[in-house]
């Protein structure tokens, strides 16, 4: 680091790649589709001021608020248990909790409409549970890593001085957790506010969010003007929310040291009970739907068997909904996921470095911009991509590479959010010490920054990989060359009657689950005790 000028120039240069990526494949398509379709005609105004739109906005906000609150309430004790206790299988639980988060909604919806013999059917409760199921990972993963590194000594002293556990939690723990808690809550709100598949599939049309209405107006009614106004409304709310969360979340995080894990093995019966209760909670909320899915994949003709898995290897051909052999479908998924994760991890890593270097208003702005792809309308983005890249030599609509690009857009925010805390934790003292001891800037980079940056890249790429393998939303609005991925194959199988296709769909869902869980476990290993939002 020589002068301020050079430093700023480096920041801008580093930011160029993620800026071009987000600019070309996210902001530009949105600008194009809004420019093309946004119009305030008399009919749009009538539709938008009508009672149905008002109730949609109300329901969208209501369910997002309730889903976020419930997710926090359920996520907190699980995060606490994972933070405070060391126990065999801790990494596994952390990885398992994340599996739902990266499962495609088609799979989750089929797991939720009926659990065992219990018909949950299509109700608002199914929607809320599904939202908690999906998003509890965000709370657990971001909180537990941070929490484990907060020194519990302060809480213990307060207890010794006679404060009740509730007072200790409210007065000491909660304020200490606040920055991470707020950031997690913002992300959960973002997801549930723009919820599409869960609401569409689990409500039977009785409930609608702004996003499902955008979908309905744009794709089923071909009323792009109404869709555009609704999507813009969603974008503004999401943007405002990110701005508020960004400002509130600027409070300095207090992490005591980089690698100190304050987790202890549960010593007393009391602690074992506490740990057991929290793990049981995780098992109920997340385990039941997953186990019911696995159970169904093992049922074939009223008996237990691995038949459904074996039939995945049946020759494709006429009368099979799968046009490609299963290994090819798996290979397609992995190939797209590898491309998407390299793209998301490299752009995300650079963006995280830039975010680490900037301060003030611009930092809040960029922080929000990074998360925006999670809250913007996937439907409008898909249509925007079709309109933007329609002219030679940039007519990319028929190209397969828009699929990993779209996956990378979804993975990008997660990469930034998981990598940024790791970079922030590179202790400046280390660099200075190395420099004082005579290391050249290059040597400082190689011995201090590079190992952490490399690990951060690995974690980011792993997360983007898992997100890509399960991605189904954004890409379903692209014109896709016929290359099946695991989620699209499951969707196709579920579109046919018959015991075999249904069984294959369940089996493939479980395979997808195992692949994502493995990716998450590898991340746990690669993270090696660092902190990350995810």
């Amino acid at each position, binding site marked *: 680091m020589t002068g301020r000028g050079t430093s700023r120039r480096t920041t801008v240069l580093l930011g160029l790649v993620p800026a071009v990526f987000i600019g070309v494949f996210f902001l530009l398509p949105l600008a194009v589709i809004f420019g093309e379709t946004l119009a305030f005609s008399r009919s749009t105004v009538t539709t938008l001021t009508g009672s149905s739109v008002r109730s949609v906005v109300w329901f969208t906000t209501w369910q997002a608020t309730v889903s976020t609150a419930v997710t926090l309430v359920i996520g907190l004790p699980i995060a606490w248990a994972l933070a405070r206790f060391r126990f065999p299988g801790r990494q596994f639980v952390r990885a398992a909790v994340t599996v739902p988060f990266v499962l495609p909604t088609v799979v989750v919806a089929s797991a939720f409409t009926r659990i065992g013999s219990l018909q949950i059917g299509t109700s608002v409760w199914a929607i809320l549970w599904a939202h908690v199921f999906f998003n509890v990972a965000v709370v657990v993963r971001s909180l537990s890593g941070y929490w484990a590194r907060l020194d519990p000594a302060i809480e213990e002293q307060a207890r010794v001085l006679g404060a009740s556990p509730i007072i200790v939690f409210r007065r000491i723990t909660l304020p200490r957790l606040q920055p991470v808690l707020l950031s997690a809550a913002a992300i959960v709100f973002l997801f549930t506010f723009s919820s599409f598949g869960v609401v569409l599939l689990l409500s039977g049309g009785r409930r609608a969010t702004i996003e499902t209405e955008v979908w309905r107006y744009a794709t089923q009614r071909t009323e792009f003007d109404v869709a555009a106004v609704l999507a813009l409304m969603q974008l503004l709310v999401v943007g405002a929310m990110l701005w508020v969360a960004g400002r509130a979340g600027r409070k300095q995080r207090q992490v005591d040291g980089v690698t100190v894990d304050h987790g202890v093995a549960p010593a007393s019966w009391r602690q074992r009970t506490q740990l057991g209760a929290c793990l049981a909670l995780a098992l109920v909320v997340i385990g039941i739907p997953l186990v019911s899915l696995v159970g169904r994949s093992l049922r074939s003709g009223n008996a237990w068997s691995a038949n459904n898995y074996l039939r995945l290897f049946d020759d494709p051909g006429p009368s099979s909904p799968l046009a490609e052999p299963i290994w090819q479908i798996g290979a397609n998924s992995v190939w797209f996921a590898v491309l998407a994760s390299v793209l998301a991890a490299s752009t995300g890593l650079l963006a995280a470095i830039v975010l680490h270097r900037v301060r003030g208003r611009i930092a809040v702005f960029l922080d929000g911009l990074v998360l925006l792809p999670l809250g913007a309308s996937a439907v409008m983005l898909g249509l925007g991509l079709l309109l933007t890249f329609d002219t030679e030599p940039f007519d990319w*609509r028929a190209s397969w590479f828009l699929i990993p690009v779209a996956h990378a857009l979804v993975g990008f925010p997660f990469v930034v959010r998981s990598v940024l805390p790791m970079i922030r934790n590179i202790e400046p003292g280390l660099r200075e010490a190395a420099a004082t001891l005579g290391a050249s800037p290059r040597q400082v980079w190689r011995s201090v920054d590079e190992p952490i940056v490399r690990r951060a890249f690995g974690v980011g790429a792993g997360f983007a990989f898992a997100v890509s393998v399960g991605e189904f939303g954004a890409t379903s609005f692209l014109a896709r060359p016929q290359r099946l991925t695991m989620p699209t194959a499951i969707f196709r199988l579920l579109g046919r*009657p018959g*015991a075999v296709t249904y069984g294959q769909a369940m089996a493939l869902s479980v395979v997808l689950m195992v692949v994502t869980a493995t990716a998450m476990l590898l991340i746990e290993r690669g993270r090696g005790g660092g902190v990350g939002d995810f």
Partner: protein
Amino acid sequence: MPHSGTHKFIRVPSRAIVALIAACGFVLVACGSDVASTTITVVTHDSFAVSDEVIADFEQRSGLTVQFLESADAGTMVSEAILTQGKPIGDVLFGVDNTFLGRALDSGIFRSYKSPALANIPLEFQVDNGNFVTPVDYGDVCINYWVDAFDEPPSSLADLTDSAYEGLFVTQNPETSSPGMAMLLATVAAFGEEGWEDYWEALRANGVAVTSGWSDAYYGEFVGAGGDRSLVTSYASSPVAEVIYADPAIDVAPTAIIEDSCFRQIEFAGVLAGAKNVSGAEQFIDFLLSDSFQNDVPLNMFVYPVSPSATLPEAFVEHSVVPATSATLDPATIEANRSAWTERWVEIVLR
């Protein structure tokens, strides 16, 4: 109309920016630019399927290379085609059905082509007099029932309001599902513009369940996969699929259709206006009506070929029933009333 030309100006500078930015870093141009007149691109919905050999055979005989692009459901596909009008994503669009045909024709996304092969196709399928689209296949959306669940299954739409069948029927929301829409249209055709609303009120009183899509109904609520409803809106070909995809193998389908409850869906293909390879696209339309493609249709998409010279696979001959009568409505009528009908339906059944 949503498409006014007043907003076009926004796209010019944005394209210039694309050009600039893209030129900087993305050297991926090669993927789309070398499309010569030997390639045709076919846009389909996400239920499209065809055997590889059939396409390979066509490619060999015509010297063309066929590229398929998969959109989402038929409604989304048509909307996307309307949005990209003039600069179509491909040369041919396959899979617009009679419920969306009116919209597609009104918006002018197709260019006219009259295939010589149409001469052999029954007139009942030739709905479009302007020859902008060509019929390729048809299928009936009918109420299916689980045979073992009934001593006396219902035999008509009207029977479903009988208290004997209370809480047994699951159908799909016509706003989000193609078979759901077909079922709504079947009731409009059967009970008339005055009567269909009363019918659905009676169905609601009799405990009809509604899902967003076909899968949720068939695999979530229908008894076949463990649900508790024994009547479901599905296809006339679903019993055949139940036999073909049975495990272990069975001789008799566990489900059957109520013949007097069906609505006919016809699927069309057309050359997109602004297609780069018009002659190739027209050859492909001819090919869609050839025996080679028509014979391949049933087992791939579980619908029937429109060509009388096509041979049906054995399973279809044995296990499938083509209903003697199937309701139809004029595509223009459907398009004119679609929004009003579905909105009314939602009010009656869901609110």
